């Protein structure tokens, strides 16, 4: 046997470390490459990761996909590796041919408004039909196109508006308190965006597919998940726990927050509006009017209810109020959702119907409805915003709408102070919560 083993070893001089280890590395690399051809949907916990993978440049998601997960859960529970705090819920997420979250062909003209912004505009954590654009469409009886998740570049928005057959109308730009405003892009950046906007759909789809294959590794996802399963604070310490902050509500429920959101709440950020002024100018060139929706962070809304909230410095949490006041002074239509959501959170707390998911950064369907009603109320101040006919002179209509909105806004809030504006919002928010409660 020993002789046979030695013969075997002599016959296979390649079985040395210098032969085996490089080939092993190559085999793992090939396995990684091969697995990239497979879909990642079964490995994802929500639609966002699955549909972002093959996103063509300029689009928000992979076009023409429907994602369904009966056991989706929140991003913060995933970020902190806290399976015990997951709130499982079914999630249906459909994208249209342009790579945005719309179902049932809502891009057919006439489209009254385009909703752009971050994951709140997309409707992360919500099912199809529960997002801001869908809600506004139902509430106001016209089509709102959800373009959430796209680069908020005016050239791209204008190109999209043309593609949707809009000649005038509204761009609702949602902005979340935790996220930084994008910088006004350089000329180079804008040229790049224009090139992207002019790409043939098949080319951009191919580019998105290549990028997805390069950037997303199913093998990496599996390895990460396996390690996270082991790091359960029993076998191994959970090194992800510090990625989130746990707060306790009076109901006894634990709510998760982003540490950076808490820092931002406590910090004093200057309310810069250069970006918004630039965006308004650029959109008006194409006959579109800008309408800003300011979304408070979960911490801003729920901090006052937390049993273990850390003391905050004076003036903490007033960032959106200050942004709102400056936008109003600059004549940019805006609605600040801080008051409606804060009031709504207080009114629904006892019944444990939260406006934000306990395990997620984003709002629940109920929170989205409160937001939809508050935005809808603000838009009703001047229906010509979203009722501007495609045949009417778009730019002129938009300008007229904006001036009427300013006039009516000023008449409601003569000082344009955050407090007085907040009071206006508060009235509409209570009504919004009541209506939401009666119409689940």
């Amino acid at each position, binding site marked *: 046997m020993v002789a046979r083993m030695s013969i075997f*070893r002599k016959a296979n001089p390649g079985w*040395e*470390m210098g032969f085996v280890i490089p080939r092993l*590395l190559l085999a793992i690399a090939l396995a*990684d490459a091969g697995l990239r051809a497979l879909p990642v949907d079964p490995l994802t916990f929500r639609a966002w990761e699955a549909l972002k993978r093959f996103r063509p440049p300029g689009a928000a998601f992979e076009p023409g996909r429907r994602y369904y997960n009966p056991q989706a859960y929140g991003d913060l529970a995933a970020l902190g590796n806290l399976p015990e705090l997951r709130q499982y819920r079914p999630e249906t997420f459909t994208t249209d041919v342009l790579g945005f979250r719309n179902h049932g062909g809502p891009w057919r003209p006439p489209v009254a408004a385009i909703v752009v912004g971050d994951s709140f505009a997309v409707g992360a954590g919500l099912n199809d039909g529960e997002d801001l654009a869908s809600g506004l469409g139902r509430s106001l009886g016209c089509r709102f196109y959800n373009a959430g998740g796209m680069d908020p570049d005016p050239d791209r928005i204008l190109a999209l508006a043309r593609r949707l057959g809009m000649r005038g109308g509204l761009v609702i730009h949602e902005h979340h308190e935790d996220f930084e405003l994008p910088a006004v892009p350089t000329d180079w950046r804008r040229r790049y965006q224009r090139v992207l906007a002019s790409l043939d759909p098949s080319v951009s789809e191919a580019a998105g597919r290549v990028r997805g294959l390069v950037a997303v590794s199913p093998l990496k996802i599996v390895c990460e998940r396996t390690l996270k399963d082991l790091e359960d*604070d*029993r076998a*191994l310490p959970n090194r992800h726990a510090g990625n989130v902050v746990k707060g306790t509500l009076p109901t006894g429920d634990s709510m998760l927050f982003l540490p950076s959101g808490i820092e931002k709440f406590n910090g004093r950020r200057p309310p810069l509006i250069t970006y918004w002024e630039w965006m308004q100018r650029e959109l008006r060139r194409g006959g579109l009017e800008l309408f800003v929706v300011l979304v408070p962070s979960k911490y801003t809304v729920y901090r006052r209810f937390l049993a273990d909230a850390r003391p905050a410095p004076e003036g903490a949490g007033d960032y959106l109020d200050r942004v709102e006041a400056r936008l109003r002074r600059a004549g940019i239509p805006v609605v600040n959702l801080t008051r409606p959501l804060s009031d709504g959170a207080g009114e629904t707390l006892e019944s444990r119907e939260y406006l934000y998911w306990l395990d997620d950064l984003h709002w629940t369907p109920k929170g989205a409805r409160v937001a939809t009603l508050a935005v809808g109320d603000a838009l009703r101040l001047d229906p010509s915003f979203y009722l501007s006919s495609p045949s009417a002179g778009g730019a002129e209509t938009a300008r007229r709408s904006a001036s009427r909105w300013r006039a009516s806004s000023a008449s409601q809030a003569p000082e344009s102070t955050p407090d007085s504006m907040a009071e206006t919002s508060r009235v509409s928010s209570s009504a919004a919560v009541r209506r939401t409660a009666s119409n689940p």
Partner: protein
Amino acid sequence: MLFNSLIFLYAFLPIAYLVFWKLQGKLPRYVWLAVTGYVFYSFWNYKFCALMLASTLVSYLAGLGLLRWQDPFRRRLCLVVPVTLDLALLGFFKYANFALTSLNELSSRWAAGSWTFTTFDIVLPVGISFYTFHTVTYVVDAYRGLITPTRSFFEFASYVSLFPQLVAGPIVRFRQIESDLGQIDRAEERADLNRGWSFFALGFIKKVLLADTIGGIISPALADPAQLSTAGAWLCVLGFAYQVYYDFSGYSDMAVGLGHMFGLQLPQNFDSPYRATNMADFWRRWHISMSSFFRDYVYIPLGGNRVSRPKHYRNLMLTMLVAGLWHGAAWTYVLWGGLIGLLLILHDLTSGAWQRLPLWSQRLGTFFLWVTSMALFRSDSLSMAALLLGRMFSSQAGSIPVGTPVLVPFIVVAGLFAHLGPNTFEMKHRWALASVAGLAFLFSLCVLVLYGSSSTPFLYFQF
């Protein structure tokens, strides 16, 4: 860039290796080694490449000067200028803020804050302690006539920026790889390839499987040492002793293995230190390139042991204080160096009695002293060190680290290999098929761990 990263394994190493062996002749290979070193370094911060280049250039010119001039004044100038410059850079980047904050603390304590200094906004360049020592040893050895300085700038640049030893050692002296560099055009690709990969794989497994797993369990527990019970504190400190050993010896093995792949023999850095029978023996086995550096360039110039006994002890203490400070700009490191110095002096005073003890108790005693010193080494502050040592040496109720059921078997395995197993230089690196399969399995497990997590930096990067 880290050796234990996917970009290193899948991009940097294959490109560096394949191009190196495609190139023929000395100069192209020197240039390529230098370029890869700078690329490797720039992955951390490209701006500090200029600092390394400046240090390299000054030492290279000093070497040329020493080659050309024989009169003592000029030779001394060629020694003093580059060494002063190198140490000044090291002093500024590593110790300036430490000195200023220490002065400020003194002021607030003894002079009611009557004078305070503003600290600098400094980023410590990774590996500055290591490449500074490379250039210093080169110039000092050239001055002493131990080496003949090279006329080839790229040969010298490839030595200083040699990526396997660039950011965390071993502190290779020019004379140790001079002949390999001199014959780099005649090196054979396959001569040491198996040995190189064997070293690399073993180091990789030591780092990713042993050191990182142990570190992942003890680090969260050590973040709040006040919560630890006596057993918990001992587990953490014992775990750290193995973590630091497997982390750094793993890195050194990888460096040696990479050296072999490029036809260079890097020296041994760890010689089973946990089998040492006393503290002096320990320091001959632990981080050999560093301890020999301090022996040759600090301890012996101070007079070594060829002086009176009090002066010998002074030399020992000064050397260990400097070695402690080299590890980091903090009083915990200085105190740790002082403690090691004290233990070396005590050993010298009691060596006769110590040697009469059974061998196993000498080893156990040495290891116990080392583990105790690790409490100081691991602590972020003197108050943490006092707290940790207090919990170790008194009966305290409290918690044990989360993951102790995993930590204990890992400590047992780590201990068995460290205390009883051969070190990588004692191995023949000719493996039977079953061993190759076992190592390949562990290696692939490590790669998959890298896939699933971000790479953990080596502990000695901070020094």
